[in-house]
């Protein structure tokens, strides 16, 4: 490990982007909660010369309500805050449940949503939840700001739609709709990354399914999601048959690896089972609250 040349503490996003652009490519890194980055530093996996801390950028902090009633989650919002925010209800509850299932209290106190999705570990909890909720990612770069749907943000193993010298500034969520969100996580021990996770967000109005979002984590380079499966669920009003078919489609589309957590074959097997279970629980909840 070579000595760190500098630690910057910009006060604005624009300044942070300038520091990134003025730095030495890979050797200049953003520092958010540090839960992942500092562990990688300690293990000698990364060797940055300059760190750009986002801790002093006010704009990135906390969860705000947008004029249209939607929510804006700043990139530096800690997992603990997201897990505790009651505005994340109805269709958006999936995000809150996912946040609550990340790691352990120490990591939830440190880790941020921006850091998590930028790192884009395919077994992480936010990516499938954001895809299921059909969130958008706000990005800042030398050319200014842009938005990318979460469904396009995650592109490959640990790779995102972020371009050179770009950073995540916020997650944008459409106003919550009545319905439900759920997040189920299969793990080896509590606090570990998912073997398989299933994120579900359902808008339900007048006994009909207005929108269904279903995504699977831990089973390939990026969150597994099929428009076709969502449409099946919506049209089939989350029924058992639609659930089975959606699970089968996702399992067939999955591209998991054999790794220390489980085999690829096992993951393919449990995807439909966990999907069916998530939908059975959803039907149950809707029938109780309807």
């Amino acid at each position, binding site marked *: 490990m070579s000595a760190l040349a500098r630690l910057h503490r910009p006060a604005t996003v624009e300044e942070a982007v300038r520091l990134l652009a003025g730095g030495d490519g890979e050797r200049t890194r953003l520092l958010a909660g540090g839960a992942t980055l500092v562990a990688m530093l300690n293990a000698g996996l990364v060797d940055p010369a300059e760190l750009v801390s986002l801790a002093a950028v006010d704009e990135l902090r906390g969860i705000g309500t947008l004029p249209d009633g939607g929510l804006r989650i700043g990139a530096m919002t800690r997992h603990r805050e997201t897990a505790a925010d009651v505005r994340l209800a109805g269709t958006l509850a999936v995000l809150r449940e996912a946040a609550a299932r990340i790691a352990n209290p120490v990591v939830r106190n440190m880790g941020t949503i921006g850091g998590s999705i930028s790192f884009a570990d395919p077994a992480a909890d936010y990516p499938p939840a954001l895809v299921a909720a059909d969130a958008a990612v706000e990005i800042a770069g030398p050319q200014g700001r842009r938005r990318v749907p979460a469904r396009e943000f995650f592109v490959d193993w640990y790779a995102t739609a972020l371009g050179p010298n770009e950073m995540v500034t916020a997650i944008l969520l459409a106003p919550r709709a009545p319905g439900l969100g759920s997040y189920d996580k299969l793990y*080896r*021990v*509590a606090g570990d990354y998912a073997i398989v996770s299933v994120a579900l967000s359902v808008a339900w109005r007048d006994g009909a399914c207005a929108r269904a979002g279903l995504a699977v984590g831990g089973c390939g380079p990026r969150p597994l999601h099929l428009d076709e499966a969502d449409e099946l669920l919506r049209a089939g009003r989350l029924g058992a048959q639609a659930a089975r078919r959606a699970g089968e489609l996702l399992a067939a589309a999955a591209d998991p690896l054999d790794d*220390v957590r489980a085999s690829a074959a096992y993951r393919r097997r449990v995807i439909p*089972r966990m999907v069916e*279970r998530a939908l059975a629980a959803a039907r149950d909840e809707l029938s109780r609250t309807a």
Partner: protein
Amino acid sequence: MSGTTRAIGASTPRLDAADKATGRAEYADDVARPGMLYAAIHTSPHAHARIRGYRLEAARAIPGVKAIVTGADLAGPHCGGIIKDESMVARGKVRYVGEPVAAVAATDPETAGRAAAAIEVDYEPLEPVLSIDAALAPGAPLLHEDYPSYVKTVQGGGHGNVVFESTVEEGDVERGFAECDTIVEATWETQAQHHVYLETNGCVADVDASGRITLYATCQSVHHIQQRVAEELGEPMSRIRVRATRVGGGFGGKHASNIHSIAAWLARAARRPVKLVLSRMQDFEIQRSRHPARVWMRTGARRDGTILARDVRVTIDGGAYADESPPVLAFALLMSRGPYRIPNVRARGAAVYTNKLRAGSFRGFGNPQASFAGESQIDELARALGLDPVELRLKNAMRPGDTAFGGQQVPSCVLRECIERVRAAQRAAPPLAPRPGRRRGVGYAALSHISGLMGTAASVQLRTDGSIALATGCVDIGQGSDTVLVQICADALSVPIDRVSYAPQDSDSSPYNWKTAGSRSTYMTGRAVALATHELRAKMLAHAGDMMECAVEDLELRPGGLVGLKGLPKAVSFKEVALRSLFHSGGPIAATHGFVFDGPGFDPKRAAIHQLAFANLGVYTYGAHCVEVDVDEATGAVEVRRAWCAHDPGRAINPAACEGQIQGGFVQGIGYALTEAMHWNAEGWLTTTTLADYKVPGVLDCPVEILPILLEDPDPTHPVGAKGVGEISLVGAAPAIANAVADATGARVRRLPMFPERVLAAIDARA
């Protein structure tokens, strides 16, 4: 004794607890000496290779490098346990990835690390042998071509890649099976588990002007490490001093390590202190694991459930070096009968070499592997017979006066009570609500273990003010032996425990102790403490008799350090006794008691024993576990909901400490059963070298209710009746959980850990 509580039987808080909780306790990494150097190890990238040569120029040229050692520097004999087959750094060959090949001492850790990386070793890679089958295959590459020439303290008939072979046999197995109505047979496989003590292995070696070495080490025996380092450095033991630091967990993984000799060697070469503390990754790579094992077992019974015969074959994977493989094999065989009356039993076993981390001692010592098979098979036998598995256990359970496998008579045995108590407790507990998508099951395991073996000693001295100075060689590895030994001593003199000091272990002054191992500290060292204290008491009473001019028979101990005249208020204090002895007559009052385990040996008339690595062991303890599990039908994930663990500690010197051992052992057993597994890839690289890969259950993965039940049955051979409870509590978890999974799903999982994937496969494979 009115007005005082006895020291024995009190759940006294640990003497070391406050220091540990407040960060004052000194662990190996806290030790610092002026001018201290830091060591780094260059490890093997090959599972199996010949070493053709070393190039050290680049490493030597780095400023700050003070000493380097490679196998080329070692000239003496090989070291090890029963089979002397290894050395602190590899010589001639490397036999596992991560094996120390060279080591460097430098002025700071970064320099040492850079220098270690700059060492170049010329290897000729050889085909690695990575499994039991590969080791035993005809024409398999040999790990130890020199095996025949190694020094062996016990002969085990090794050949090829076989380290050791042993047999224990009672009765006539073939005839026994011929009389059976039902016979079941299966094979079980278990994995390598790591100890994952919170504190990794580490030490600091200091050297004085005469070249005498003092080693500060986190360890399970100062005497054992002293002997090993002396042997390896070619020094008399008088030139090596070992002092134990506080130990952040051992579980069998801190008996021996390459690092002590490496640090001592480098310190001697550099004439400066050297610190060598392993990172978590290195500790995983170079230390030790539990033996992976394959156990084939066949058991037969009459229609009424009387078990008549059992045949067992145990093969353990010892990894690259023999280390504790022979005794682990021996103990697995001795435990393979289970705590049952089975007249005809044959247990045969072998330990093999493979190109992986050496396996060594680990809480349970072969018993977890044997009992996972044995206790699973009891349930399968019950099912085949159409009997209740608990009733089958009760019917065949050992009773007091029965003999253990090997033929020793067992005076104290509360096995049946343990089984009945856990069953009653489970039945009486309010049922947990069923959960959708989960299947509930209940499973049992019956267990035995030992707590007496090898040698130990204790010394006690009376100090000027009447305080007592106690010393033993028993290192407290977190299990609480400091507290328990002090309780035993204080109790024998009717003084509060704060009147007894307990010396940290130092090979210069501590009475000999083999190791903190084998659940033996409370039985073995506790017995030595009690008897030494009794001798001290006798000497004190003789003084008191002289002082009060009366016969010793007329004296009694009174609480708080007084010797009184029976029936009269007259008394002298311990202080007065001490002062008399020190300044007037008799000399300092001290006593020492030492012994080697003296229980009844194996009975050659009962048992035919061939090449067993243990000459004598005993003081059997018994226990039973009952667990409730939920199995997730969708994923196969197993969750332990509640557990009842009944154990016989003989006499519970410190009930809270016993309960802590039971709960801690059971939790480590849950890890063994469900989540913990070391994994090597096809090239022989250990892939689980961090705690992100290797998963130990955390507090959220364990049931809140792990309910210990202490069934005290004082052991007649111990002055205060104590037996050991440190290991047996781990042994029952895996079979009880496997039996509960079978109860829940009808699926039998015969491979550990019971990953969800394997449970789901077993559910699919149901007949």
